[in-house]
């Protein structure tokens, strides 16, 4: 049985269409009674066409070709991530390759191929738990370190979300997930000794309930205590600007002239949209150009301002249906590797969706993550559509491998 998931595909097209409309209005400015447009929407339209072609090409590509290319491309991506660090800064970080009119972020490509590489490595039969952990960690950590150096903390975080989402559906016993999260929590809780002690005791208790042997539990306890002690020392050794970068990542409102200002302007724009919005092209905050990036990271503020609560709800509903439909469909994929890939892709798109809109609403700290399928940006769209294309491909071909 071969069946193409028309609904997912249809919702994808609808989302990109909404994206085009949003970019169209985001790139307009009103002066007196005249509207003036920059050509972002035309460029984005060309990228939509290119993305669709790639998507169809992907559906026709034999699986064997994709399989062979995974590791070579992964290695190339790592090399690109190294190379990009040596290029001159753009907007204060080393994230972009500037190829004429196109800015390409190697970390976009790295996301997709890290997912593919992890999935391939840990879906081989007869792997021990240790092997699964070690392989997936190495494949994730290398790009993450390079991306932290750029620095791009938001994208680096996405990789951990990907890793975690895949490990949840893997054969790994669930207490390992607790083990993975525990050091992160230890770092977070290191600011207060009492909270840390309560946390450490609960951790030991939970692991004890999983019937882990005393040596392992003891080892985990020592590691976590070590992190608790080392974190303040490490923190105090960071340079001022490094501390500031991390603090601003956690709380953008610390930076009233940068990220914090953008978030407040986004909240004002969305909030002032009210129930029905100010109308297509008529957003006053947008027209006043308060947000320099309102066709990219802050495009949702334009949707919120011009289409109001009803428009936002409609938009979120479509996005919700799209993600939910994928989540439901991929459960039917029976080949482990493909399932892992699909879960990884779904997780990162969901994560970016949440972080981006959350940031526009001022409920999520970080900034610098675009809204998939909606924000202006060619290479970003291309990678995201290709990723959905892979899921569609696996869904269509699932019966062959069942």
């Amino acid at each position, binding site marked *: 049985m071969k069946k193409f998931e028309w609904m997912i595909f249809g919702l994808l097209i609808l989302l990109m269409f909404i994206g085009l409309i949003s970019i169209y209005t985001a790139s307009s*400015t*009103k*002066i*007196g009674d005249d509207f*003036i447009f*920059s050509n972002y929407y035309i460029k984005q339209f060309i990228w939509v066409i290119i993305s669709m072609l790639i998507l169809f090409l992907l559906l026709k590509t034999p699986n064997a070709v994709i399989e062979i290319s995974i590791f070579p491309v992964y290695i190339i991506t790592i090399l690109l991530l190294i190379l990009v660090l040596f290029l001159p800064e753009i907007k204060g970080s080393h994230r972009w390759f500037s190829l004429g009119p196109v800015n390409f972020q190697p970390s976009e490509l790295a996301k997709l191929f890290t997912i593919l590489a992890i999935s391939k490595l840990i879906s081989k039969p007869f792997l021990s738990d240790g092997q699964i952990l070690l392989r997936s960690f190495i494949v994730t950590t290398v790009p993450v370190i390079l991306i932290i150096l750029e620095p791009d903390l938001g994208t680096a975080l996405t990789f951990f979300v990907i890793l975690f*989402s895949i490990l*949840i*559906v893997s054969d790994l016993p669930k207490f390992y997930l607790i083990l993975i999260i525990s050091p992160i929590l230890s770092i977070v809780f290191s600011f207060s000794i009492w909270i840390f002690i309560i946390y450490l005791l609960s951790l030991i208790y939970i692991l004890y309930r999983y019937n882990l042997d005393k040596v392992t539990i003891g080892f985990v306890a020592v590691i976590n205590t070590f992190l608790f002690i080392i974190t303040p020392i490490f923190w105090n050794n960071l340079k001022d600007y490094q501390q500031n970068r991390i603090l601003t990542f956690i709380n953008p*409102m*610390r*930076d*009233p*002239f940068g990220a*914090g*200002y953008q978030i*407040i*302007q986004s*909240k*004002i*724009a*969305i*909030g*002032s*949209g*009210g*129930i029905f919005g100010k109308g297509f092209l008529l957003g*006053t*905050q947008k*027209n*006043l*150009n*308060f947000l320099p990036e309102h066709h990219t990271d802050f495009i949702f503020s334009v949707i*919120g301002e011009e289409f*109001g*609560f009803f428009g*936002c*709800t409609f938009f*979120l509903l479509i996005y*919700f249906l799209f*993600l*939910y439909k994928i*989540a*439901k469909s*991929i*459960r039917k994929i*029976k*080949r482990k590797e493909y*399932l892992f890939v699909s*879960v990884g892709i*779904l*997780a990162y798109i*969901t994560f970016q*969706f*949440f972080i981006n*809109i*959350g940031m526009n*609403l*001022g*409920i999520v700290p970080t900034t610098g993550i675009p809204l998939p399928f909606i924000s202006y940006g060619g290479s970003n769209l291309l990678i995201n559509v290709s990723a959905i294309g892979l899921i569609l491909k696996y869904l269509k071909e699932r019966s062959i491998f069942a």
Partner: protein
Amino acid sequence: MYKRFPASSYMEYVILFIFIILIFSIFKLQIIEGEKYKNIAEKNIVRIQTIYPTRGEIYDRKYRPIVLNKPSYNLYIIPGKITEKESVSEFVSDYFDKGIDEIMKIIHENRYRSYQEILLIQDIPFEKMTIISEQLNYYPSLLFKAEKVRKYFYANHFTGYTGRITEDEYEKLRNEGYSINSNIGKTGLEKYYEDILRGENGQQVLQVDAGGNNLEFFKHNLQTSPQNGDDLILTIDNDLQEYVSSIFPKNKKGSIVVMNIKTGGILAYVSKPDFDPNLFTGGISAKQWDNIITDPNKPMLDRVIHGTYPPGSVYKPIMASLGLEEKVIDSKTKLAKCDGGMWFGNRYFKCWYAKGHGRLAVENAIKYSCDVFFYDLSTRFTLEQLNEYNTLNHLSTRTGIDLPGERKGFFPTRKWYIDNYGKFVGILGHKVNLSIGQGEILVTPLQICAYYSAIGNDGVWKQPHLLDKRIEAENTYKNIVEEKHLPMSDKTLKLIQNSLYKIVNERYGTGTAASVSGIKVYGKTGSAENHMGKKTHSWFSGYAKCDKFEIGFNVFIENGGHGGSVSAPIAQKFISYYYGIIE
């Protein structure tokens, strides 16, 4: 054959959870708090304001002003608040010397900067401002601001002037804190020391609503203070500068430079005709600009470093020292006999003195400025030797003065002649011509001034400069200048100095018009033939020493006539003036 993965359904719950959170947050923002944000949005309450620094001022060596900031009223427009482009443009053009299309063009260029204030008119008189203010109710897009503009104390070529940043400059510099309304140094010191004079912007977040309540979106770091630009203290002496400027022959073109030979610091820097830099502070009108640009006398041309001219006889000491250094001649060697000229092949090269000087040794050849001596001398060298020695004396290379766009001058090479005159060009004739500073050689008056100052400073060449020190918030930085040695031995130097002394102080010297009693004046005259006019360029270069000062100078009058009769008396005047005023 694979088991099902029940864990794979967790994503569905995560997605549902996220959806609920987002819908709830949007509900809160748009419905519960919607009115509050509508109010903030309508009044533009929250925004970032840039606080601009005060530009550094410029003073002379005795801390007397040359360029200051003075208060001014400026008119701005906010494109986003324009109700009708045509009527607002008409309103502004009624009051100011700007056409309707000029203003429409500014609006069009800034259409994307809809919430920014765009500078329209600078330096508006107070009375005019009050009249216009009364009508601003009808034009909500216009507003006045009290700011500062530059005031230049006298017409000159070294301060340069500031002007509105252009679109191109803005694109390049926007990340360095320039706004679309910034004034930026366009020429002269204003441009050369732009980074020092400008300072650094500050910023301020505005978040107070109409009722005066702080909205408290941000609690900390609400302001970064601007850092004002540093003041510059120049080596210029305002008294001497003004005096030299006042004695410059009326309706003549040219330049006069006076510098301290010990330091290279420039005391007076005059180029004529000149222009008033204040013309540019209010934004120059198209008509005024047109007048200046089409003026055949080119008042904008800085004839100290941007004009290059044949040096004529002031070049002769360089030839003489080459001959002495290469041991082709010594102090007693007499060269070809001058009977009013000399034959080279089938061409007769005239000496300026038709009756002839007879046979002279080097000192008298310089004193009487005998051309034939130098014609003959040049035949003993290759063109490449002449070229190399020219460069070693820091001619046809930039002096490195702290002003933008200094010209290099020119000295030809064999290759240049072949490229321009063909393969069979006779180099000899050109070489002979070059030996008396004629022909293709070009120098700037500043290069000549620096050379003669170096002779006066016992062979130590100092980089000419205008900046003495800059006053920073905490410190004073002294300008550091380059120094080099002229390519000549002490013996040669003494001989040249002697000859320059005789020119001014002995009977029949060509520069006796420059002598001042009580001061040792040294100098060389020059009358350079040129294609710019019938009269020769008049040069007088040298240095003067007394117990109070040691100065080098160059007087250059374009098509002024003879150096000895036109330029030397001017030097005499400012040397005695300077002696009189200095403490």
